[in-house]
């Protein structure tokens, strides 16, 4: 594995602050699996200094390209936004463990909140390839951050939307959708759950799924420096008391094993 300079081939605005970028990264596109991430150096300057982690949004192995979906929140993502096709960023990856795609024997329920939508596209591509039934529960604050709905539906994904600005679907949180889904599917066999989103949402989901008996995989985020388990900066505590590294042992964990707040 190496770090490699990757050319930007396309960059589109979804909203003023959310962007989809496409990069030429043949090695990564070949090796990666859903839930893994790349660690990006956005400039060769010294500020920002550290690499930034981004989930793989979609992989196109034959084209040798990957896509990322990101929100501009600080200097690193602002620099990235200002880059144009032809410009180059440096990537390490693919990193992390990725999702277990076989665990939902039959029906996968994917819960995405905010930028948790990023890895979900790739995940669903892979689940559909494996002929799984897929339900996507997708919530955002701003309804414009929900997109490609028609495409999901055309491919047979059961899509339920929640927005806090009431612009699309249910007016409220994605966890409301999850509660409804679980009530409707109480006792169903062959289910498996995937959760991607900000920590408060993952905590809420942890609470909600306590009563279910199938596997819930959650993708976590932590501040990262190295991205490969060396700096020990991105620790997460498991309920066993054990410490694991989000970058190397994760970012995907069994949601029930995560010990939030001690």
């Amino acid at each position: 594995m190496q770090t490699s300079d990757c050319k930007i081939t396309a960059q589109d605005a979804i909203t003023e602050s959310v962007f989809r970028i496409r990069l030429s990264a043949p090695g990564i596109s070949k090796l990666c699996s859903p839930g893994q991430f790349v660690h990006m150096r956005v400039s060769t300057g010294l500020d920002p200094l550290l690499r930034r982690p981004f989930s793989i949004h979609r992989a196109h192995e034959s084209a040798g390209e990957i896509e990322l979906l990101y929100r501009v929140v600080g200097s690193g993502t602002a620099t990235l936004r200002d880059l144009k096709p032809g410009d180059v960023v440096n990537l390490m990856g693919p990193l992390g463990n990725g999702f277990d795609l076989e665990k939902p024997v039959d029906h996968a329920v994917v819960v995405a909140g905010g930028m948790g939508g990023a890895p979900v596209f790739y995940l669903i591509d892979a689940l559909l390839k494996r002929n799984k039934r897929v339900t996507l529960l997708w919530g955002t604050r701003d309804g414009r951050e929900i997109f490609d709905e028609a495409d999901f539906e055309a491919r047979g994904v059961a899509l339920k939307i929640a927005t806090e600005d009431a612009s699309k679907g249910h007016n409220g949180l994605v966890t409301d959708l999850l509660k409804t889904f679980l009530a409707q599917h109480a006792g169903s066999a062959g289910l498996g759950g995937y959760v991607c989103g900000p920590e408060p949402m993952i905590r809420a989901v942890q609470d909600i799924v306590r009563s279910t008996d199938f596997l819930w995989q959650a993708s976590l985020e932590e501040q990262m420096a190295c991205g490969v388990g060396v700096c020990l900066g991105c620790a997460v505590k498991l309920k066993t008391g054990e410490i694991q590294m989000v970058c190397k042992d994760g970012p995907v964990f069994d949601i029930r094993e995560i010990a939030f707040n001690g």
Partner: protein
Amino acid sequence: MVDLSVKIGSLTLKNPVLTASGTFGYGREYDPYLDISQLGGIVTKTVTLEPRQGNPMPRIAETPAGMLNSIGLSNVGVEKYLNEKLPLLADVDTNVIANVAGNTIDEYAEIVSRLQHHPRIDAIEINVSCPNVEKGGLAFGTDASVTAAVVKGVRNQTGKPVIVKLTPNVTDIGVIARAAEDSGADAVSCINTVQGMGVNIHTRQPLLARIIGGLSGPAIKPIALAKVYQAAQAVRIPVIGLGGIMGWADAVEFLIAGATAVQTGTLNFIEPAGPVQLIQGLESYCITHNISRIADIIGSLEKRPVK
């Protein structure tokens, strides 16, 4: 051919580039990215008597041209280090320097007594400078007499080269460096991280759970250079320089200021192949400047003509 070798006490490094403790794991983690046998040596993560989980999260944050960490010496403990980590380095052709810390003066000696017979350990670096622990660490390295006591204790246990890693968080690093020298250290390395802090202005919480952590990266390079220069003026034993080295040119600055070897820390996170690229850069620099032995530039700082 340029002779890149340098000597730290009885230890010869094939080149002056080491990877710094806490930024290179136990030595093999970055194998996919570089050939570690090309390095002058590896300093492994600080090991303590018992395993440690480290400090609460968050324990890293970014700052202008730098980063803060408050890992808190998370490590596998000496038992697992000996049985599981060192064997992974068995047949790597580079020097392995074990970095150690204790909660008490005696613990430093105890852990060194456990490590010192291991054939894979070529030298020992004593960490009396970690800003992220309650006991040992900074509290020891800011006090010349405690530093001296730690070094003496360790010196009694081992004939291997002993390097004392110094903190910049002191009024006069020369005093601490001399205490280390006088107590039998073979070299000092400086610097460990600089105490630093950050605040999230929206939550009003500190960026690090433990509030104050250690600053590393290019931001601290000028500070590290000054400390290396001051330490090199104060002692006759070799000084190993680190702090903010991002490329070969930075390494040359440290050598000229008085360092015999250098370590790369934060660089490894940003460019894992960086340390090896640095060695190549040092060689090119020597060729360009007609330097046949890199050791010749150590401490070669010239005074400026006064304008």
